[in-house]
């Protein structure tokens, strides 16, 4: 059991190291295979651990394995340990399973790219970091993983380092995450100061905290969670992160890393339960993010940005669920979202690849006939995202909506309203994208790429050369097979929870995180009917607008505001960036140039004068030296005698 888990953690690390150390001694294809193989080996380890844990009784499913003690300071010890329990196993399976598919997909997508080996080493490093985050057996290791995924994300967003936008996006992501990392570390420090241990909080240790401590710790953790998961108000980095290669967007900025915040809340739910106000705050932030991201997604033209805003919106649902205490549904939506969002990103990647790097949906259209397989896959993903039964998104999202309804009260009903509004927006923006890309007459760009895809072509903005192996007109098999597998998962992945009938996933998670709110099957099905019809209305609105040939949001003022992403970037620029620049300029003009730089010549001249003066003492006259020595000794003798 534990051996499988350690294998799962270490295989991707070994893969990353191997590719890095081998350098140019191995071919690019070999690097890709090492990376893919190591992640799938990790998946095998995770499956082994999963099957063994599944065979145990629910109360014995938590295992802590310590490899060695890493830091010892008196009675304070930090061990290199991993925690294997249902929550971490779920994450392990998602990270290595979906991750393996995406790395495999990258083989076709990145083929011919410069620096492919670097890409694959980074991908394996990311998988290792993410596993470290979810498997870390204490708070410090969680923080280590948290930092490492931030690093991997930074490296991969900035993978096209010759493009200034990519470098700027990478920096932005790192800075925004650093804010969250700082608050999270402070939360951990406070927790460690109060409990004296790095172990994850237990009922006893969380219950012993005073309410102000619990609130502060929970706020710190929430800060980390919202930064990593791109929730309001620390969300502005995620859309820009789409500058990275598409598989990176699928793996890091949709399926795994951005959901780390949800994992954190579930993992430390006892702290949040000790601070109910903060927990509700996370639900409220999630609810607001659902709607804000949804409306911004309505006006985006970049295929990847639409999906990125949709990711923010869907993670909003997870935060809503975690904030209300429906941990099982939060994790469940995390899983189904990993399937269908990875599917959407990878299908978008197939399209972008096919169209030589074009990402503007205004230049697409009519792809349905040209790319039937991708069309089917994307449609499944889009329907799952919009929550249409029986696809996976329906089961998980409606469980969350029902939980907010079951919570009741002002909070529950307002979150319920936000979630329903989110369902409407999801249907609308998803199908606006779908119709614009796949329906209507083929655009010029599509026609241009329709026939001659076989012989290789320039890869547009991503600067790669074409590729040979095309079994299919839509892309290499290494891209299409993962898409196919994800299509199946996105379609049936939701069947693990059928309210009232068959809920193995919820019982699986519940043994670690007891839910605070549970909807009755009746509430569940009633809200489902409502949510599905509202989602259907969204789809219908998108269709009507598409047929009429107009945009969903046409009015001037609102549209401009949405196109500027509700001015968050401008706001942060005005509030933080500009004042900082102002102060920095002022300091440079008033302090740096006149004082610091201005004083340098004077200091130099002063030292030189002093040196000249001292040098005069060295006359070269031997007898005067002797006299000075003799006189000094005489003086010393007198002093000693006198002091006596």
């Amino acid at each position: 059991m534990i051996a499988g888990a350690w294998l799962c953690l270490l295989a991707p690390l070994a893969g990353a190291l191997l590719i890095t150390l081998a350098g140019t001694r191995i071919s690019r294809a070999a690097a890709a295979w090492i990376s893919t193989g190591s992640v799938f080996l990790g998946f095998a380890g995770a499956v082994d651990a999963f099957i063994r844990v599944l065979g145990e009784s629910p109360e014995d499913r938590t295992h802590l394995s310590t490899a060695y003690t890493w830091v010892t300071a008196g009675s304070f010890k930090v061990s290199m340990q991993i925690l294997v329990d249902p929550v971490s196993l779920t994450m392990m399976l998602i990270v290595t399973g979906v991750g393996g598919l995406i790395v495999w997909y990258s083989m076709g997508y990145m083929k011919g790219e410069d620096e492919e080996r670097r890409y694959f080493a980074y991908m394996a490093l990311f998988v290792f970091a993410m596993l470290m985050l979810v498997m870390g057996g204490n708070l410090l290791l969680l923080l280590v993983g948290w930092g490492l995924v931030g690093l991997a994300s930074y490296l991969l967003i900035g993978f096209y380092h010759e493009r200034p936008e990519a470098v700027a996006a990478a920096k932005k992501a790192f800075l925004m995450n650093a804010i969250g990392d700082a608050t999270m570390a402070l939360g951990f420090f406070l927790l460690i100061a109060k409990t004296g241990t790095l172990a994850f909080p237990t009922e006893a240790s969380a219950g012993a905290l005073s309410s102000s401590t619990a609130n502060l710790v929970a706020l710190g953790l929430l800060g980390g969670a919202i930064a990593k998961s791109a929730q309001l108000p620390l969300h502005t980095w995620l859309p820009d992160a789409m500058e990275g290669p598409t598989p990176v967007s699928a793996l890091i900025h949709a399926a795994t890393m951005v959901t780390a915040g949800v994992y954190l809340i579930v993992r430390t739910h006892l702290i949040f339960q000790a601070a109910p106000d903060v927990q509700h705050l996370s639900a409220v932030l999630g609810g607001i993010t659902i709607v804000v991201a949804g409306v911004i997604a309505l006006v985006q033209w970049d295929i990847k940005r639409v999906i990125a805003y949709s990711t923010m919106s869907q993670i909003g649902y997870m935060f809503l669920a975690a904030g209300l205490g429906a941990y099982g549904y939060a994790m469940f939506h995390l899983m189904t979202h990993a399937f269908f969002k990875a599917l959407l990103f990878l299908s978008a990647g197939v399209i972008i690849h096919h169209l030589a790097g074009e990402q503007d949906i205004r230049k697409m259209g009519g792809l349905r006939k040209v790319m039937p397989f991708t069309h089917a896959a994307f449609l499944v993903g889009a329907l799952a995202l919009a929550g249409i039964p029986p696809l996976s998104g329906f089961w998980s999202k409606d469980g969350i909506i029902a939980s907010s309804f079951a919570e009741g009260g002002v909070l529950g009903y307002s979150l319920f309203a936000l979630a329903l509004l989110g369902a409407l927006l999801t249907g609308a923006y998803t199908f606006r994208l779908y119709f614009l890309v796949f329906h209507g007459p083929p655009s010029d760009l599509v026609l241009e790429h329709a026939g001659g895809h076989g012989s290789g072509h320039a890869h547009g903005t991503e600067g790669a050369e074409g590729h040979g192996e095309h079994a299919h007109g839509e892309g290499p098999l290494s891209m299409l097979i993962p898409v196919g597998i994800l299509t199946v998962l996105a379609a049936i992945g939701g069947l693990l929870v059928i309210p009232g009938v068959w809920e193995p996933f919820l019982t699986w998670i519940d043994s670690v995180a007891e839910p605070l709110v549970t909807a009755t099957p009746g509430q569940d099905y009633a809200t489902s009917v409502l949510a599905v019809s509202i989602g259907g209305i969204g789809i219908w609105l998108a269709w009507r607008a598409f047929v009429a040939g107009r945009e969903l949001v046409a009015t001037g003022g609102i549209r401009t505001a949405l196109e500027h992403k509700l001015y968050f970037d401008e706001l942060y620029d005005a509030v933080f960036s500009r004042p900082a620049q102002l102060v920095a300029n002022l300091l440079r003009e008033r302090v740096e140039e006149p004082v610091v730089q201005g004083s340098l010549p004077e200091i130099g001249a002063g030292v030189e004068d002093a040196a000249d003066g001292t040098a005069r003492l060295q006359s070269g006259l031997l007898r005067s030296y002797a006299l000075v020595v003799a006189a000094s000794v005489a003086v010393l003798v007198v002093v000693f005698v006198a002091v006596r």
Partner: protein
Amino acid sequence: MLGPDVTWYLAISAVLFAIGATGVVLRRSPLIVLLSLEIMLNASNLAFVGFSRHFGTVDGQIFALCVMAVAAAEVCVGLGMIVAFSRRRMALDVDTLTELHG
């Protein structure tokens, strides 16, 4: 104990040291300066041996031996330099040998 008291040895040592110091400070010939230095070293040796005898230990005598070794080495260097000066026909006057001034 035979012979005079340690005070006498110290007095002679002090006189010798003063003579040596005066020689180092006043004389300009490097050769004489070296000789004066030797007188100073031997003054200290005399004090060492005097104390050694006074306290009945051999530490001072061992020190004196060390001082002699150092003095021998120092004379080698010093005389070597003086020979080198005269070979180059430089003035044997410490007041003119001020090449190393600052």
